[in-house]
């Protein structure tokens, strides 16, 4: 192997340092593995930090009747039964232990009168189930995991970006990466790799996602031969900021509605009465997002094209205590005092239910040695995710991935690194510097966001999706000629040129899957096929790489055992 590269060796290499990555690292370490964590940003800045509302876990501290069965049923219903039932079961059963564990590592949740962890109501959850810390639950979680991991002895490679997974035959052998700071390259040898890179929201224009959410892990896995599943299911969170334009898309936590916030159109009508009279504002996110979108489209939107979300009927000090970040966010960024008047909100691209197809128990992908957890993995959420189920997903399946990756590392022999793969990765990464006259990556990214926002948004049609595919092909051709100015020293233009490739891959996968699914289910709404189709309810869409192109196939949803079927049939 070429010795000009800096080389690091680990039993388990984790890509991504959000909740899933850190939880996986802690577990792999506990299994005795040598663990490395690579993250694109500084430690503690991953997207988990932005999670606000809480962690869903049937602790039954507030509503005594809650148990894992109800949580399982809510999750399956929210996901329109396209979920992997085993993942939904494991998630519901294990989430309470994962929350208690966080507390034992120092996390401080809000409390009930009797001193237990307090739980709040959230959309689609039958009971008060979300363990929370005001509206900054994600920060509490990431800080707790970060400190735990660091003190247990994980090696963290901060501001380092993986651009290629290395393989030894069929199996995973390592990863090729560059340091953002100096632009130097590094090679990581690893027996197992866990992908925990989060989502893909940066391919859309209006999004609550940070710059990191460019689908890296999914694209890396896809390139390495893994299968991506359910990518047509992109969650548009119902409530993002809509005004002023500078802050468009920034998340307004569902906790506002959980704490009693109401939604009205410009005529003062609580329009959720027409969409879901039973659950009203606490209906599932897909329903509320479509409701707001429809109100706006039919002329009943607010001045800036949204709906009014109002919590000002609650005492001001209560609002400030339970929703402190929302209070400051609106006061500072939009000149709105939410204790006195309503917020203007509208849908914002927030989360992708789909991702790398994994085994429920072990989180292993179809490539030996490759694991995935959190938003980067598919299965748990089906066609639509319930609020609060993401943070618990990270903990439950982060732990499982870490455990299985460590086990795999013990039994698999040392992989061999292929120098030719590394050299190719290096060539690809450096090529944009040598294309004078090529286009700026910022322009191509901007145009991709336009395409995904307008053609692959909340409501989709055959024609729009076909147009989107044509546009994505053109964008791919332009991206192949992208030019980067400046040096390799901390160069965001260069970084974006690479991230763009990942966004194009996941955008294409999303569009192809959306085109194939001729029905409306959960977060996937087709104007030309507005109803649920039972046949489609029995299959998932999967894409896989064949040569240089993307192939789509259908796979049947696994049959559920009778005892779980019984739980779903019960109506409480």
């Amino acid at each position, binding site marked *: 192997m070429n010795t000009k590269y800096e080389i690091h060796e680990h039993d388990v290499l984790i890509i991504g340092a959000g909740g899933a990555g850190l939880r996986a690292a802690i577990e792999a370490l506990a299994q005795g593995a040598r663990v490395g964590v690579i993250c694109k940003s500084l430690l503690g800045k991953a997207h988990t930090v932005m999670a606000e509302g809480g962690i869903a876990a049937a602790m039954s501290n507030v509503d005594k009747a809650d148990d894992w069965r109800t949580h399982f049923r809510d999750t399956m219903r929210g996901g329109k039964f396209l979920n992997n039932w085993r993942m939904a079961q494991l998630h519901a059963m294990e989430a309470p232990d994962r929350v208690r564990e966080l507390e034992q590592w120092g996390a401080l949740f809000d409390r009930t009168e009797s001193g237990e962890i307090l739980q709040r109501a959230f959309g689609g959850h039958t009971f008060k189930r979300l363990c929370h810390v005001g509206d900054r639950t994600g920060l509490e979680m990431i800080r707790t995991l970060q400190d735990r991991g660091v003190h247990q002895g994980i090696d963290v490679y901060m501001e380092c970006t993986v651009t290629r997974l290395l393989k030894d035959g069929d199996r995973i052998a390592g990863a090729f990466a560059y340091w953002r700071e100096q632009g130097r390259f590094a090679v990581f040898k690893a027996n197992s790799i866990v992908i925990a890179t989060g989502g893909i929201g940066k391919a859309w224009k209006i999004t*609550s996602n940070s710059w990191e959410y460019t689908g890296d892990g999914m694209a890396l896995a896809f390139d390495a031969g893994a299968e991506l599943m359910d990518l047509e299911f992109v969650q548009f969170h119902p409530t993002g900021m809509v005004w002023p334009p500078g802050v468009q898309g920034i998340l307004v936590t569902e906790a506002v509605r959980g704490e009693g916030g109401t939604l009205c159109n410009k005529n003062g009508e609580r329009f959720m009465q027409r969409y879901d009279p039973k659950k009203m504002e606490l209906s599932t996110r897909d329903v509320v997002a479509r409701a707001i979108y429809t109100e706006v489209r039919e002329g009943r939107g607010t001045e800036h094209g949204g709906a009014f979300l109002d919590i000002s009927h609650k005492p001001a000090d209560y609002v400030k205590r339970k929703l402190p970040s929302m209070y400051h966010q609106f006061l500072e960024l939009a000149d709105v005092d939410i204790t006195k008047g309503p917020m203007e909100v509208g849908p914002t691209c927030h989360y992708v239910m789909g991702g790398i197809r994994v085994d429920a128990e072990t989180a292993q992908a179809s490539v030996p040695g490759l694991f995935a957890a959190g938003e980067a993995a598919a299965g748990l959420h089906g066609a639509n995710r319930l609020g609060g189920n993401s943070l618990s997903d990270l903990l439950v399946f982060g732990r499982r991935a870490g455990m299985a990756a460590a086990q795999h590392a013990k039994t698999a022999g040392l992989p061999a690194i292929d120098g030719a793969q590394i050299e190719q990765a290096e060539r690809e990464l450096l090529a944009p510097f040598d294309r004078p006259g090529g286009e700026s990556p910022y322009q191509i990214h901007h145009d991709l966001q336009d395409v995904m926002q307008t053609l692959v948004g909340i409501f989709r049609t055959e024609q729009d999706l076909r147009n989107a595919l044509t546009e994505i092909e053109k964008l791919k051709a332009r991206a192949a000629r992208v030019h980067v100015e400046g040096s390799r020293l901390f160069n965001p233009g260069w970084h974006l040129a690479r991230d763009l490739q990942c966004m194009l891959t996941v955008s294409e996968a999303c569009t192809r899957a959306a085109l194939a699914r001729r029905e409306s289910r959960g977060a996937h709404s087709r104007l030309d096929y507005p109803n649920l189709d039972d046949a489609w309810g029995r299959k998932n869409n999967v894409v896989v790489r064949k040569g240089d192109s993307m192939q789509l196939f259908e796979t049947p949803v696994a049959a559920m055992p009778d005892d779980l079927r019984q739980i779903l049939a019960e109506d409480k």
Partner: protein
Amino acid sequence: MAEATLRVFRGDRESGKAADYRVPLVPGMVVLDALHSIQAHQAPDLAVRWNCKAGKCGSCSAEVNGKPRLTCKTRMDSLLLDQPITIMPMKAFPLIKDLVTDVSWNYKVNRKIPPFQPRPGVEWKMDQRDVDRVQEFRKCIECFLCQNVCHVLRDHAKQEQFGGPRFFVRVAGLEMHPLDGASRTRLLKDELGIGLCNITKCCTEVCPEDIHITDNAIIPLKERVVDEYYDPLLMLVRKIRGAKTAATAKRAEAD
């Protein structure tokens, strides 16, 4: 369309100077939006560290017109727009490039702090009032602006002897955790050098999370150190009961 001029530091450890960029204004625009506009249209290699653009991650710290701020929370319309807006990197940390500095020292300090250690046999129940006190410290988003303005670090460069306000906040969160059983006073005194802080409150002023760093974290911690190490009466008692002193030392050692 109305425009503003941003005077942005461009350069690396070797050399650098400010460059002017004209940026079209959009309602509600924040400084970070303006920097992104420069990247997209004028200087694609302008180095800026950011993540969430929502005031939650603490990545985009810089000095705007001389004031340490999160650029994602600094509205353009809060600044005087008839003169150039200067944007400089944080001064207390080594420069990498443009607005990006090397903040890795902070992560090294953090590693010295013994983690949460529940008291043996503890019951996992807490009163919200006790939790409130600690949750203030847990709000910290690690923007490191407090470290950047602390004169012990910024002007006297005592990084080797001093932990800085961020880590006093972190220690306060652990020490005041209702169920924590470890002691970190020796660490505060010897390794984090809390005695060097002369409570000028610069850190509290710049905290974007409104944490009362000086009043609620640093001063109570200083009191703990004084109580344990400098209280003349206690020192006398300890001298008489030699065993107790040894026990305290041993506990601190174990930390």
